[in-house]
């Protein structure tokens, strides 16, 4: 006697399974299976050829004790802060400037600001590599023109400034994206509240901070969380601009695990770092999703 758990309900549209099959099929093979593989691999020691050696949680213990892992983690955080400063903040300001009263050429401005987002990181690294070039770069040319010759250093090779240099390049592609989101959010705000504040004598700055920002605080939080997640997923820009240098100063988690796996033949260890990174990103995402759903209910 079959259990009653599977009833053929006439109102179920089983064709739905067929319709989701391509997506779920590909997803299982090329996403879920690799993730599971990664977890398994992280429990082993493997050089890429030959047998794998089971080591349990040793890789994780080593990773948590590895100063490079913590350094990379801090670098990702630093990148996040940098992105907020040169990406989110300018995006917000520009959105505010554009969303208010009629500005002539508004679409033109919007189109321009979003342009860098279209470029691949290879292009960004080439262009900004030239800007930062110590001898002919635009930055040093400007600095020398201003008379501050001592500051015309090798930006991408300088331990104190390399990370900030990379972040500025990254932020250049990011602020347009944030601006678009903020403009959409601002368009959903209530103009009557601003007008009321205006009548009460508030100037633009006061209106901005006391009336407008609170209305879009949800979106701001969301963008900040997205920035955090993005900052931990980066690989391209560091790989292309500094390769983690100088002296591993710009090493981030993704480049570190890539190097450990593909250069030092520590595929198990690299996988464990990847898992730690994933766990962190997942945690942030889930917390964010949960809090968003709570707020919406």
């Amino acid at each position, binding site marked *: 006697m079959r259990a009653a758990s599977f009833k053929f309900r006439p109102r179920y549209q089983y064709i739905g399974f067929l319709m989701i099959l391509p997506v779920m099929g590909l997803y299982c093979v090329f996403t879920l299976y690799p993730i599971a593989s990664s977890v398994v691999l992280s429990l082993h020691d493997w*050089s890429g050829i030959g047998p794998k050696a089971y080591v349990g949680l040793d890789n994780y213990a080593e990773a948590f004790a590895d100063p490079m892992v913590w350094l990379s983690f801090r670098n990702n955080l630093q990148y996040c802060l940098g992105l907020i400063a040169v990406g989110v903040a300018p995006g917000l300001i520009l959105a505010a400037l554009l969303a208010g009263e009629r500005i002539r050429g508004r679409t033109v401005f919007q189109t321009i600001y979003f342009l860098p987002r279209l470029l691949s990181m290879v292009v960004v690294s080439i262009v900004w590599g030239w800007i930062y070039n110590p001898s002919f770069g635009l930055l040093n040319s400007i600095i020398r023109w201003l008379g501050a010759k001592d500051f015309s250093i090798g930006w991408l090779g300088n331990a104190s400034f390399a990370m900030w240099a990379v972040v500025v390049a990254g932020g250049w592609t990011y602020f347009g994206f944030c601006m678009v989101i903020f403009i959409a959010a601002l368009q959903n705000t209530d103009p009557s509240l601003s007008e009321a504040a205006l009548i009460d004598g508030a100037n633009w700055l006061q209106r901005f901070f006391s009336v407008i920002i609170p209305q879009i605080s949800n979106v701001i939080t969301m963008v900040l969380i997205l920035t955090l997640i993005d900052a931990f997923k980066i690989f391209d820009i560091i790989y292309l601009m500094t390769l983690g240098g*100088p002296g591993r100063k710009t090493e981030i988690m993704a480049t570190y695990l890539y190097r450990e796996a593909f250069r030092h033949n520590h595929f198990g260890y690299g996988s464990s770092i990847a898992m730690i990174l994933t766990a962190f990103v997942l945690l942030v995402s889930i917390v964010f999703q949960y809090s968003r759903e709570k707020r919406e209910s």
Partner: protein
Amino acid sequence: MSRKVLMAFCIALALPLGMFAESRGQITLKVWDQWRAENDSKAITMVDDNFMKKYPNVKIERTAMPESEIADLIKAALSSDSGPDVIYSEVGIGFIGPMLKAGAILDLTNTWKARGWNDKLFPVSKSIPSVGGRNYAVGCELEFCPIYYNKTLFKKLGINEPKTMSDLDAAMAKLKAAGVTPWAWGGKTWWNNANLVGSVLWDYLDQDTINKQMYQDVSWKSNPAVKDALNKCLVEWAQKGYYPTGGEALTDDEGLMLFYQGKAAMVPNSNANIEAFLGNIGDKFEVSSFNWPKVTPKSKPNTVAFIGSGYMVNAKTKYQQAAIDYIDFVCANPDSAKIFYEVASKFMPYKKAIPNLKVPRLVAEARAALTDSSLLLLPGINMTAPPEVMTFLETNAVQVMTKQIDVPGWIDQFDSLWQKSKAEGMTLSTFKW
């Protein structure tokens, strides 16, 4: 004898005959190598054609491997059953170690004697790709790294080729005073750092010490000469402004640009780039080379030797004989060597005299240096250092230059990484395969 038994007998006879026929029949030898550049490709094609003329039953199927992370490619190929028979690639244990341990590479130790390579090839060709007393590759593309310099500029400023370290210091002071950057160096490219630091280090240490460091993992902290070497190249020269401004952010190409433009006078580089030098400099000025100068009056002038890569045989190959024939033809044959010298300016390990060699002066100088017995020719540090140490060397030299860490601190980290690799069995003395 019954007919059945007779048939079985014939079949049994025919089988080994068939295999024998196959080995005399057409075989295709799959070769993966690194001859990507135009002239390199030309040279190897000529050599392959000559080989196929000599061995008409062997067809060479060549693939030039990409510049990217090929270790994994090779690993994947060697794991499968349809991998190449011959591979020409990097031979450091950091690179090929996993393949060695997995038994994927053929042990060539006995082949050296059997083929007479000990007499025909430079010793470094054997010693560098050897570990645990066994050899696994024939080193090729002999490189050594003297200092290339702008001779026209030197003559103009009245500087002679430095023979001692103090000569070199004096020469650089003169260059600096005349507004020329002494070193054309780009610190962003890791190889430049490894070459510079490695060369100076080897210059300060004597052969005995070097051997102990490489093959016995003696602590790097024990020898004060190490500190002197690093102080010289990473502290003193940096402070005196002998490197280009912002040099840490320049790639080696950009550093070379300074050399080609006459803005920097010397570049420690490999003879593998002679072609590029000649192509870019042309008639602008005369370029020549000198070896790293003596540090103390008694030491022999050092020249660091590298092998670019090595020819290896896939342990799973069905055509061992043909594979070794091929390697012998490419590396230990004077005609092949001549082709590579003249067409591609690349140095095959063939050490005996090659008659009628028509090569540019720089190449001839380099070959003379290689065969000069008064020079101490030693494997360079990136041939012998464990991979994690190499990464440290490549990326962290600039840290001393930019004053983030002092020399003793740097040596500490360097040494502890070396000892860590030793514990993991990744140094020459501890690696087992």
